[in-house]
């Protein structure tokens, strides 16, 4: 453990930051509440990787939190299914304004390969206005980190 403290971290160096999304000023701190409305967990694995030592989104002030009340917005993965539409709306209602919505993965962005399937009720942009979309099935952790940095501002 002590060796780990002195050794250089495993994180890859940070790249250039893209411009911040207009209208959002979170001053270097981004807390998101993750909601899985009907995903295969592929995007969740990539999100976990994005927060893990190699890509380390945490060094830019990005964190996942437990309660939507503590969050600046939602990180939604998966396509909106019938059973999860109600809880998604509840979670949206619990967010304090101003809030941002991040759609992570093709399913959240435009329904992916599940458009029109039985069990799917809508796509995310039909329920709420999405601020940042991260395409990919699944999206690369580097892209996830870069997209979140445009919200956080660091």
């Amino acid at each position, binding site marked *: *453990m002590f060796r*780990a*403290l002195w*050794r250089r*971290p*495993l*994180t890859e160096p940070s790249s250039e930051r893209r411009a911040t999304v207009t209208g959002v000023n*979170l*001053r*270097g*701190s981004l*807390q998101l509440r993750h909601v899985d409305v009907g995903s295969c967990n592929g995007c969740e694995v990539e999100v976990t990787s994005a927060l*893990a*030592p190699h890509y*380390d989104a*945490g*060094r*830019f*002030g990005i*964190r*996942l*939190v*437990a*309660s939507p*009340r*503590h969050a*600046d917005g939602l990180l939604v993965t998966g396509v909106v299914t019938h059973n999860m539409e109600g809880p998604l709306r509840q979670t949206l209602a*619990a967010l*304090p*304004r*101003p809030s941002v919505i991040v759609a992570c993965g093709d399913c959240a962005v435009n329904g992916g390969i599940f458009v029109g399937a039985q069990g799917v009720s809508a796509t995310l942009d039909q329920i709420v206005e999405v601020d940042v979309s991260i395409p990919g099935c699944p999206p690369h952790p580097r892209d996830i980190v870069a997209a979140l940095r445009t919200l956080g501002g660091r």
Partner: protein
Amino acid sequence: MIANVDSLSQGLATLLQVIVVALGGPLLVGLMAKVKARAEGRVGAPISQPLRDLRKLLAKERLHARHASVVLPLAPMVIMATSVVAVAITPLVSTHPLLGSSADILVIVYLLLTGSAAAALAGLDPGTAFGGMGASRAMTIGALAEPALLVAVIALSIQSGTSNLPGIMASTLANPQWVLGPSRLLALGALLIVVIAETGRIPVDNPSTHLELTMVHEAMILEYAGPELALVSLGEAMRVGLLFSLVANLFLPWGIATHDTALALALGTVVVALKTAFVAVAVALIEVRSAKLRLFRLPELLAGGFVMSVLAVVTGLVTR
């Protein structure tokens, strides 16, 4: 005139102490997060991240649950007030803060208990299941940790002959050979367990958990948003700062300012910051090495702390 100048400089020293802890508390939390990140091989968020989070929270909207009463907005103010007053009267930077003559251990302990009770009531107010769960667990842990805290500091006050904190520090400064005595070491062990319990760190509680069923403290504040969340977080961070620096100062009081000159105060601030940072790093390393204990294993840990503090008192009495 002299009395006015004295109390003015005392007041300024106290104000300095409060500001230092108000800024230092979140920095300590950030430091512990950084140590844990480095131990995992990550870079981690900068140490000043909690301050950034607080600043952002002030700009957000305030939400109140439908069934909540006046207790919900009142509790963060009570938590802040008890933390600030406890910090103001404890000798951290200087040995004689403004109300130092009444800086009694019982006052500090019960002020902190009042803060915990306010948080528990805030958890019960919205009428949700997790709020009640957090309140119940937090009060249980507090009920089991508080006796150990009280008896451990009483062990120190028996040796010093007074329960007044500046008095305890002054007598430790005058008798450096006490520091390595068995009574003090046992009390230190007990206090370390209690401080981990009261600040909600692993192995008692995981402050960054997302699973509501494993939450103790987080569950009580699930309903808070925006500025009220900022108040609660700052109050909690100040408690962390207070408890860590109190442990550091009770056992190693050297460096604390005994006069109110600017140089002494500056030196006192730097020294207490270093000592507290040392304690914080130690606690962070304990966190890295341990896993969170099951809720019903916690009484064993806290009872162990209590037994250590009772032993500290007994050895103190026997070796008098």
